[in-house]
Structure formats: structure tokens, C-alpha cells
């Protein structure tokens, strides 16, 4: 396993939290981000090491620049692993969607991920080694009413994954995406009971996945065993959407 810090964004809860803890358990030095100071403090506490949790607002490039500067000040190791997990939803039917709802979701999920990745890529290029995993969503590939903004952001993220993978592959930097289907998390808690029933009809395994199911796929893509995989998508959805 390559030395170097692993960063997980959106790590204070849900899938991100699970990815964070699984990487800690497998021996990585991990840093997590959250949108609030409480969330950041909770991450440091969870890991049991000071300066493990940082505040990050992905909608604000200044906040992203500050994050990278702070991490470099506080830690001497290079950042070798990046898991772009943070994401938001602001669901609404197309006709009712406010311009802000569209912009907010695109800004955080797609543009923010672009900025953070760009800032961290320089050191990976210098080191000629790096691993980037983008957490997308199956919704970017299948239609889902009420999520034109979210689905567009995730489809965009996957396109970015492939282009960046092509740019940096020769430098031993891999860039892949994991596409969760319906996973038990705060995000999926917002789904109404009636809609859940309908969704379950389409899931071959007839249950929602756990955050751990997603974390395992991420861990694989970060591992030495995945060195020859880049620009790929791994779908973790209980057999809902079989490509």
C-alpha cells in the first residue's frame, strides 16, 4: 500500500463516514471533511487523532483552497488518495425547480469536485502516483423524476472521471467512479414510504444497500489490486441497473 494521506469529502455521515472508517481500519492515514465545524470535530474524534477533520464548503473555491493549504500546513505527507464523496440533493420537478436549486447542486457536486481535484492533482502528478474515486450515483445513468439537477451533476462527474483518467493514466494516477444505487443513509431517508415500495420492486435483491457495500468498492479501487483499472464505473445497486 502506497503511503500518503487519503482525503474523503462529506465524511461526517452516511456513505462518506463508512468510507472514512473503512480506510482507517485498513491502515490509511485519513482526513475527512464536513460542511460544519461540529462535523469536522466529530471526524477528528471518530478517528481519534487531532487535525483529521476539516471544514469544507464545496460551493466556494476559496474554502477549497483554504482546505488544501491547511492540510499541507498540518501534515507533512503527500496527499495520494482522494475520494470525492460529498454531494447534495435539492429535488424538485423540472417545472418547479428554482434556478438556485439547479445551481447549488451543480456547484457542489460537479464544480466543487472539479476545483478540489484540480488543486490536489498537481502533487499527484509530481509524485507520479495517485488514486481518485468519485462517488457518483446510479441516477446519473437512469432517469428519476425530481432529480434533473442531481442526475445531471452525477452524469457530468462520470464524464469528468473518464476524461481525467485519460489525461493522467500514463502517470500511474487512476480515476474511477462508484455508482451507488439505493443505500440506507440520511439522503435516502428523505424518500417517502410509498416511493420506497416502488423502488424495491426494481431492485433484484429486494433491499437497500448498506454504506459498507459502497465502501468496499471504494477500498478496492484505492488498493494496489486496482492499479490497471481507470476511467471505470463500478455499480453497487443490488442488481437494479445491469449494464
Amino acid at each position, binding site marked *: 500500500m502506497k503511503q500518503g494521506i487519503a482525503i474523503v469529502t462529506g465524511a461526517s455521515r452516511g456513505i462518506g463516514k463508512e468510507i472514512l472508517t473503512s480506510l482507517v481500519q485498513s491502515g490509511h492515514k485519513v482526513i475527512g471533511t464536513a460542511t460544519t465545524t461540529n462535523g469536522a470535530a466529530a471526524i477528528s474524534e471518530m478517528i481519534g487523532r487531532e487535525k483529521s477533520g476539516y471544514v469544507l464548503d464545496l460551493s466556494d473555491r476559496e474554502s477549497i483552497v483554504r482546505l488544501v493549504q491547511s492540510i499541507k500546513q498540518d501534515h507533512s505527507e503527500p496527499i495520494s488518495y482522494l475520494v470525492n464523496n460529498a454531494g447534495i440533493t435539492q429535488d424538485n420537478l423540472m417545472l418547479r425547480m428554482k434556478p438556485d436549486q439547479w445551481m447549488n447542486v451543480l456547484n457542489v457536486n460537479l464544480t466543487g469536485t472539479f476545483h478540489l481535484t484540480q488543486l490536489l492533482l498537481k502533487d499527484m*502528478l509530481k509524485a507520479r502516483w495517485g488514486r481518485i474515486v468519485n462517488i457518483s450515483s446510479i441516477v446519473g445513468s437512469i432517469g428519476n423524476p425530481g432529480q434533473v439537477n442531481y442526475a445531471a451533476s452525477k452524469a457530468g462527474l462520470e464524464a469528468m472521471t473518464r476524461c481525467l483518467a485519460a489525461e493522467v493514466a500514463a502517470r500511474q494516477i487512476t480515476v474511477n467512479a462508484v455508482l451507488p444505487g439505493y443505500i440506507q443513509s440520511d439522503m435516502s431517508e428523505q424518500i417517502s414510504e410509498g416511493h420506497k415500495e416502488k423502488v424495491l420492486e426494481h431492485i433484484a435483491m429486494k433491499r437497500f444497500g448498506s454504506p459498507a457495500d459502497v465502501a468496499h468498492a471504494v477500498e478496492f479501487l484505492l488498493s494496489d489490486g486496482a492499479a490497471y483499472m481507470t476511467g471505470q464505473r463500478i455499480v453497487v445497486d443490488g442488481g437494479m441497473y445491469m449494464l
Partner: protein
Amino acid sequence: MSETVYERVKKVVVEHLGVDPDQVSESSSFMGDLGADSLDQVELLLAFEEEFDCVIPEDEAESIASVGEAVQAINELLDKAS
């Protein structure tokens, strides 16, 4: 006497692109003459930053496509810093 900026730039270019030192002159363009691809060119600038312990601003970086242009930009940066 210590190495000139040109000599150090040339050394980085030779090492990074694996070209013959005799091929490299002030007028050599990275992509046209020395066979670099666009990512090589970006990485060369990163290597210059390391060699000279400086940061080449993005808007300047985009206009540096030859050995001479790199030498000039680095000289200007070093002048500003001193």
C-alpha cells in the same frame, strides 16, 4: 561559477523528456521540437517550479512553450523575488 538559469532549465528538460542535450537550444519548443505532449509540458513547468523553488502563475504558464520562454519567465520571477 554557478549554473545559469538556461543551463538548469536545459538539464530539467533533458531529464524529463529524455532528449539528447545537443537537441536542446533556447529556441526549442517543447511540443514541436522536443516531442513533448501537452501533459509533459504541464509537468515540465511543475519541474521548473521545483528546480527554482518558485510558483509560475497559471496565466503565465500557459504562454510558456519553449526553452527560451521558460528561461525568460523564470528570470523575471527570480528578479521579483530578490
